[in-house]
Structures are given as C-alpha cells and as structure tokens.
C-alpha cells in the first residue's frame, strides 16, 4: 500500500523542500497535492507553493479545509510558519489524516498540548521526524544500549551551523523571552532552531529535566542584535535522576568548519566516556581549484542560508545523516503495523517545553529555572 501525502505549505521558515525527495523516493508514499490557505499568506509564498505544485505535477489547492476532504490524502506534511502549525495539525487530525510535522508542533506549550490532544482524540498517527533519527541520536543510543560506558552520568552536545555571513555586531541587550513569537523576516531564534536538535539527543538519553539554565546572545549577526534575539545559545540541565546535560547551539557563520558545523556529543558514563561525531566518517575531498575558487558568500535571496548549505570539504559518508529517510520508514512501518513511531507530537511537546524553559532562563541571563 502507498500513502498519499498532502504537502501543507513551502514556507521559507520550514523544511518542506527537504522532505520532498523522501516522499518521492519512498515506495510507501506518493505526493498527491500541495495546499495552503491563500487568503492567509503573502504573495511570495502563494507563488512558491504554486511553483512546487507545478514542479511536482500535482494540483495546488488554495484552501486547506478543502484539501483535507480529498480521499487520496492519508498523510499531511505540515511545514508552515511555526505560528500556524498547531492550528493546521489540529485541523488535519480532526479530518482523520496522519501527521508528519516539521520540527515544532506549536508556538507555545499550550498549542503543543492542543496538538497532542487532537492526535489522541482522532486516533491518528503522528511523527516529528527531525530529532530522533539522525546519526547523532542513533549512534548515541547504540552506545548506551551496548552498555560499554556503564551507567550514563551526563551528555554534552555541540551542534552548530556554519552558515550566514557574520558582520560586526553592536552591543546588544539580553535576548527577550519569545512569548510565542518566532517569525522574523531576517532571523531565526537559534536556541530554538539549532538547539532543538541537541534537545532531541538529551531527550533520547536522559530522563525528564528538573532544572535548566541557558544563556545566549547576538555574537555574529547585527540582525539578531536589532531584534533582541540570539544567534548562539548554551543550555545546561539536570534530569530527574540527577544526571547532567548541556548543549551549545547556533548559526556561527560560513567557513568555520570543514563539514558545515560541529555536530558532536560526549557521553560520560561510569565505565567510560565516548565522543560521537555525527559528521564522521567523512570523505575528505580537496579539489585544489574548487577550494581556490570557493565562494562562501550566501545567495542574496537566502542570506542566513535557511535553504542552502556552505561548501563542504569533508561531507559525511552517510547518505541520510539527518535521518529523514529513517523517519519516513518508521512512519510507514508504524502505519502498516498500527503502532506509534519513535518520536511523535508528544515528544515534540516535551522538546518545546525544555526550549521554553531555556528561554525563560536566557531572558534572565542564566537564572536557574525549575521545571
């Protein structure tokens, strides 16, 4: 059986474009339409949505409610702005559709709760594919399951994107609590955007958090300083079993790492410590002319490189380092076997709760927040 997939929006703040190859290639899925609420989006997105529908050879439906009535839609891939995702997820679940949601299920914990509730009531299957299936989490879980490092004492993660063109940053205030606002024309909040991947690893390895402290600021981009947001952040937590976790996350500028940014975890156990580098094994590719001619400047229409990557001198050998193909396998198998995928809207809700506690701490310059 193949499942029909409806693509809900190609917002530039999301990763729908990254999901398309998986839906096209997977034997268990087929893309049946692209949809959005035309009366609620701007001209650029209306045009982009239509371009993608045309490119994929499927209809564009300008009304989500109408698209959800299509009988050939089994799975809805939601990749709209964060502020709209909860509403769309609840709408799709109520229509009896299974959910594939890009990173964040809502802008607040209350919105995430509403999605968890809608999924439960509709008895549909949900997956948030971005956190659990990548190399860093899967290798860490393999090490823990093998028992080689004994009992886990702590997990420490550094995951950053070598993207964007840094420029001198004026003195900036402490970043503000987002209070449900995530969308800015020029910036993404990076504790949320890059930190959420590391939180996914902390979730996989540790119990629920008890205390959280976070710091962050604008160190690389004047756009972040001007909007009182962070381009870099770090976070420390303790879990319910007294174990320790920490992360650093950010958008740190092009040409700072041979593989596009560090992606490293250190697992400290009673019997050993292991360092896991998700960018290894890598193939070192040094073509003289390419290096000499390399242009690291981001494209004018994508200055923070939300939709593009830097030139990589040492790309990971894995053909699925982010685990999107593995996530799609899990969703299709879960539907066939009538079970839950490994990472659902429930885990995504917990991820967001950790991040928001981090933001409460960050806004007070690192005060310890009890969860």
């Amino acid at each position, binding site marked *: 059986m193949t499942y029909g997939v409806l693509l809900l929006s190609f917002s530039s703040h999301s990763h729908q474009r990254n999901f398309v190859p998986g839906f096209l290639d997977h034997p268990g899925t087929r893309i049946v339409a692209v949809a959005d609420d035309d009366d609620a989006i701007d001209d650029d997105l209306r045009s982009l949505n239509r371009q993608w529908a045309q490119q994929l050879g499927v209809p564009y439906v300008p009304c989500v409610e109408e698209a959800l009535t299509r009988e050939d839609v089994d799975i809805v891939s939601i990749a709209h702005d964060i502020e709209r995702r909860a509403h769309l997820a609840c709408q799709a679940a109520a229509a009896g559709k299974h959910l594939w949601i890009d990173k964040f299920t809502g802008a607040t914990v209350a919105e995430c709760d509403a999605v968890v509730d809608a999924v439960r009531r509709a008895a549909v299957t949900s997956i948030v594919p971005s956190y659990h299936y990548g190399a860093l989490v899967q290798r860490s879980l393999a090490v823990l399951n093998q028992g080689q490092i004994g009992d886990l004492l*702590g997990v420490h993660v550094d995951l*950053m994107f070598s993207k964007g063109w840094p420029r001198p940053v004026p003195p900036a205030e402490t970043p503000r609590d987002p209070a449900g606002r995530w969308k800015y024309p020029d910036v993404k909040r990076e504790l949320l955007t890059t930190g959420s991947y590391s939180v996914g690893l902390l979730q996989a390895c540790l119990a629920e958090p008890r205390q959280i402290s976070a710091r962050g600021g604008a160190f690389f981009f004047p756009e972040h300083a001007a909007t009182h947001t962070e381009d*870099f952040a770090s976070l420390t937590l*303790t879990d319910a079993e007294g174990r320790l976790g*920490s992360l650093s996350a950010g958008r740190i500028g092009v040409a700072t790492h041979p593989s596009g940014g560090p992606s490293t975890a250190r697992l400290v156990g009673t019997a050993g410590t292991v360092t896991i580098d998700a960018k290894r094994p890598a193939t070192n590719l040094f073509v003289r002319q390419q290096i000499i001619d390399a242009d690291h400047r981001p494209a004018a229409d994508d200055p923070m490189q939300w939709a593009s990557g830097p030139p990589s001198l040492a790309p990971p050998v894995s053909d699925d380092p982010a685990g999107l193909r593995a996530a799609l396998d899990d969703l299709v198998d879960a539907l066939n076997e009538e079970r839950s995928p490994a990472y659902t809207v429930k885990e995504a809700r917990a991820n967001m709760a950790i991040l928001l506690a981090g933001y409460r701490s960050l806004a007070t310059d*690192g005060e310890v927040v009890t969860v």
Partner: protein
Amino acid sequence: MMRIVVICDRHRAPALKAFGHCFDVIGTVGTAKPLRDMARIDGPEQAIDAGVQAVIALTPSAKLGEWNAACQTQQIPLISAGPMSPTDPNGFIPGRWRHNASLERIAGATKTAQMGTPVFLRHTCCGDGLHGIWWSLLDSLDFAHRVLGQPRRLLVGVSRRGSRWHAAVTVTTADGKTAHLQTTPAPHPGSDAMLLTSGGLAWNEASADSLQDMDGNAIRLDDEWPDARWAQHGLQQDAEPPDSALPKGLLTMLRRASRNRTIETLEL
C-alpha cells in the same frame, strides 16, 4: 635526574609514562598501577630512605597530609596539582593545562586578531571522587579564565553513581562569554577542547590514532598528558605564580550539588 615519588590515582595513571623521560621515579603512591621500573611506595619513610628529592601529587590522596608533613620536616619539595584544602594552597602549582600543547594552541588562537572575540568554550578533563573533580575543575577554570577572561558566575552540577563522579560547570563572564567545563571519571588527558569565537572555531580532534585490540577496545596512541612537563616547571625555583585566584566555595558547591542533585550557583 631528580629522584621523585608520584602520588597518582588510577584514572591519571597514563600520565606516568612521560615521567620516566625526565625524572628518576622511585615509585608511586595511590591506586595507579606502577609502570615497569617503578615500585609502590608505602610511606614517606621508605621514600626518604630511598633518597627521594621531590614528591609530586598529580591527584588528591588521603595520604597527602602525611606526605606534606614529612616533606616539610625533611625540607623536601612537594608540589601538587591542586590545593591541600580550600584554605591551604601550600604546594599547589596551578596551570597544568598550560603544559598541554593543544590547549596552549587554542588559548593562543585568541591572540590572532582575525579570530575576533571569544564566545563559547567547551573543555573536558578527568577526575574522580569529590576532591578529584575539584582539582580538575580548578585547572579547567584556569584555562577558561585565560581564554575568556575573569569568570563572574559558576553554575555547578554533579552526577554520581557509587564511586564514579561527573561534574559540569557553566562559567559565565560579565561580558556575555560562556564556558562549559566537564569532568569524566575515565582517564582523559584533558586536551578535548573547542573554542568558538566571533571569527572562527578552534578545536582538537578526538584521537584519530588508536589501536583496536581483539576485544574491540580502543587504546589511544597520541594521548598528550601534560603532567610531567608541569612537574618539571613546578620544581623550578623561578616557577611563575598563577595568574588566577582560586574560586573560593567551589568545593562546597560541588558537595552541595552532589547531595541535592541540583544546579548550584556560585557568584565570584
């Protein structure tokens, strides 16, 4: 070569290798298994009879007070990689990390104008037991101080299972820089560091040179333990004093964080 006794626990035992190149090691005290040509020393009397000229404490030991008293009586120099107690820095030669070439290179990177301003530092060092992690963190804090500037606040967390201790300390400075320092109970030379600056990133590669045995265990071949060079420096008459003061209260906070399983705040 100077005849020495080394006080060393099991987790720092790999550091002993390099001592044979620059000292005549009479023997070791503590849980570290002595290397070939080294004896296990029972107490100060045995060492004095064997003509010991200096005692070097790489790790804390319950016997340190006894050795310190004997060395003072006999006027034998004793240097240690950490303080005897929070109020007694006698013999403590800070800055062991400065004799690790990798860490020195990372610290030196900040002198390059194009590296810009430090943003974030991560450093992993080794230590076990309450006093073991205290000594290691004091060294790591000295490294963070050199790289980021004067710390303003420490957030201290400790995770413990039986006799295995793990600490994580968040260091913040008044101008927004942050460091995450952590200890591991497994032997570790302390060269694992990453520095993010406004102009770039500097980090030490996790060991690429390792030997895999038939049981699947990896043995690192390029470990860079700074202890022997630190000891040589510390025993010089003109060894420079440390440039960072001991953060008072750290040991208390480590103890409290361990007992309460909480993140403790230490304002400096």
